[in-house]
């Protein structure tokens, strides 16, 4: 973006002012250090609030390595980052670089709040569009232009308890939803408090996260949810709950708590993602494995959820060049994100290192394959409203307040209203 000479002059004035201040401060500490022009970049993400993460670690490294740039990092809890950024953006306090959950990205990119980096990426020696998986790349693209880069990615698959499978005489993990229901019936053991399967159909993004892939498998998508196939799978899920093969509490449990029941041996299968692996390795006192998410028919279309975060430079940054340099540094260090932070790179050209933990390595291989089928939510600036329509419909169907098809039709009416605005 051309910002004109005035903005540039203001920049220089600001930089000089900053340089003077910094110079004074430094001069006071270390005698005879020459004053140097410095640029301050603000970076916001959810990392580093609980334990070291990608954004806080790399920001500090970049800050240390570059004398001319100061990186101010702020960690914000997951639930808050979009609201904090909206508020800051409206009052002119927005950061230079921010990291959003991928379905939230379009809210900003579609409204011109993110910097168009199509040309910068095309000219960059470090970053290339071709490296990334389609799904994540899609979520940072709006109207054919690139407004950000994927930070990391994840998806969901089917965890299964091999010991319980052996006991029930099942040799293979289910490959269709009908097979899953049959297996769940065999695996359920009320006397020992064991459910056949657990998943999350919570009233929130997690509910949509796990259900949208079903819609996509049936040929639908974010804009078309009332498919026969999705209604059929919803009916299967409802029968799982009604027959006691899955806990009724899947309607209020988040994925982490739902998988907790799997880890404690109270559910034989669980739908969840790679973020569970480390806890499972530690807590699960049985043999387990991961399979691809079942399909609607044998050999039918595959899909899975696309999780993970994106980076973006905000459009009102005073220092787009420096911000892009920092972004390049983040990308340059992507080969470390799995080893150091356990996150999966959103690109196919980085080999995951072998961890030596057999179950973990096998699970990761399945998730790597699953990632090829992962499809984004949206992208749409009003994604959250679409998402609410979807999880409301899912819950109405699962609680029997409406038939599956009626619930999906109602959601479709809401979604049409959003798309045709």
């Amino acid at each position, binding site marked *: 973006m051309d910002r004109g000479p005035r903005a540039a002059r203001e920049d220089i004035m600001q930089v000089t002012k900053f340089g003077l201040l910094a110079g004074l401060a430094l001069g006071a500490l270390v005698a005879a250090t020459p004053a140097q022009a410095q640029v301050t970049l603000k970076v916001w993400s959810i990392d580093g609030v609980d334990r070291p993460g990608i954004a806080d670690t790399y920001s500090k490294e970049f800050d240390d390595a570059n004398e001319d740039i100061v990186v101010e990092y702020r960690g914000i809890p997951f*639930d808050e980052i*979009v*609201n904090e950024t*909206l*508020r800051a*953006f*409206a*009052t*002119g306090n927005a950061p230079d670089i921010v990291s959003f959950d991928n379905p939230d990205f379009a*809210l*900003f990119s579609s*409204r011109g*709040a993110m910097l168009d980096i199509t040309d910068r990426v095309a000219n960059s020696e470090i970053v290339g569009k071709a490296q990334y998986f389609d799904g994540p790349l899609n979520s940072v693209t709006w109207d054919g232009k690139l407004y950000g880069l994927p930070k990391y990615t994840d998806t969901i698959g089917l965890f299964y308890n091999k010991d319980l499978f052996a006991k029930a005489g099942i040799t293979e993990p289910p490959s269709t939803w009908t097979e899953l229901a049959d297996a769940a019936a065999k695996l359920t053991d009320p006397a020992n*408090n064991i*459910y056949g399967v657990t998943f999350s*159909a*919570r*009233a*929130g993004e997690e*509910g949509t996260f796990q259900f949208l892939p079903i819609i996509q498998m049936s040929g639908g998508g974010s804009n078309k949810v009332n498919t026969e196939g999705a209604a059929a799978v919803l009916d299967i899920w409802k029968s799982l709950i009604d027959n006691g093969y899955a*806990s*009724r*509490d*899947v*309607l*209020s*449990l988040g994925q982490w708590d739902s998988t907790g*029941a799997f880890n*404690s041996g*109270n559910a034989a299968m669980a739908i969840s993602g790679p973020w569970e692996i480390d806890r499972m390795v530690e807590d699960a006192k049985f043999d387990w494995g991961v399979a691809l998410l079942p399909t609607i028919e044998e050999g039918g279309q595959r899909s899975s959820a696309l999780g993970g975060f994106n980076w973006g430079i905000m459009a009102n940054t005073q220092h787009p060049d420096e911000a892009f340099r920092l972004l390049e540094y983040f990308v340059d260090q992507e080969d470390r994100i799995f080893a150091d932070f356990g996150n999966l790179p959103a690109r196919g050209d980085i080999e995951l290192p072998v961890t030596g933990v057999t179950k973990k390595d096998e699970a990761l291989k399945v998730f790597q394959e699953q990632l090829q089928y992962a499809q984004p939510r949206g992208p749409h600036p*009003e994604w*959250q*409203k679409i998402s*609410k329509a979807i*999880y*409301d419909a899912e*819950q*109405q169907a*699962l*609680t029997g*307040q409406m038939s599956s098809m009626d619930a999906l039709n*109602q959601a479709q009416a*809401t979604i049409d209203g959003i798309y045709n605005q």
Partner: protein
Amino acid sequence: MRFLNALRDGVGFDILLVGAALLFLVALAGAPLVYNVLMSFQQVDMFTLGALFRPFVGFDNYVAVVRQPEFWLVTRNTLIFVFGSMTGQFVLGFALALFFAQNFPGAATIRGLFLVSWVMPGLVVGGIWSLILAGDYGVLNVILRSLGIIQANVFWKSDPAFSIWAVVIANIWLGLAFNMLLLSVGLAAIPRDLYEAAELDGANAFQRFWTITLPMMRPTIGAVLSLGLIGTLQQFDLFPALTEGGPANTSNVAGFWSWQLSFQLYDFAKGATVSVMMFLLVLFASVIYVRSTRHEVRG
């Protein structure tokens, strides 16, 4: 000089005392109120979030909110939540206050323990109750089953028939301290000799409660109920932890819905609209309170 005299005479002093507090409240609570009322008649997006003057849309937001498929469900839930919580808090709080007004060893000490929910952060209370109310591993079901009250597990948070009550139960626990404390204060202010006289006249315990305790408690009850209504309408922390308003909005109430619209669906105008609608309920509470003060007796 006249101003200083007025101060000393009292009227000025009174106005100064009330004025300072009201000015403070108007600046920090009144201004946000105006902002929200304005916003409910405007079209808002992320670029105009910080502005005061935005495209005016009349009652469009109100119409849109009422047309949402969940509107009547949320209204019903709000009423259940408010009346259920307040009745529970008030009845239990009153019962406890009466009980601890008896003279027995340790009464004051043990009553003190009942103030714990006052100091617990809502976020934590939500988390604890979420574990307690879980259908499978929840401890409430285990206790109820072992007492023979229920045969099969109740899915408090996930059964549309119970989900709103799950939040009500947690909210009763949370608000119990407040109700008991205020009602205890009111009870203690009733002169003992009134009871003694009534006892001499041969009034039984129930008659004494009905003819002395309740009438004397009217102002306290008014304060408790109106502050309780405001607190209940503003209750937020429990919802994200317990049900997020689910399943399918069966436990969604106006306060949480307003938050959800504003900060989860980023539809700020509709969120503001719902919060302004809640205004009407609080208006009602304030009138009850102010009326109840008419019956106050000065010590």
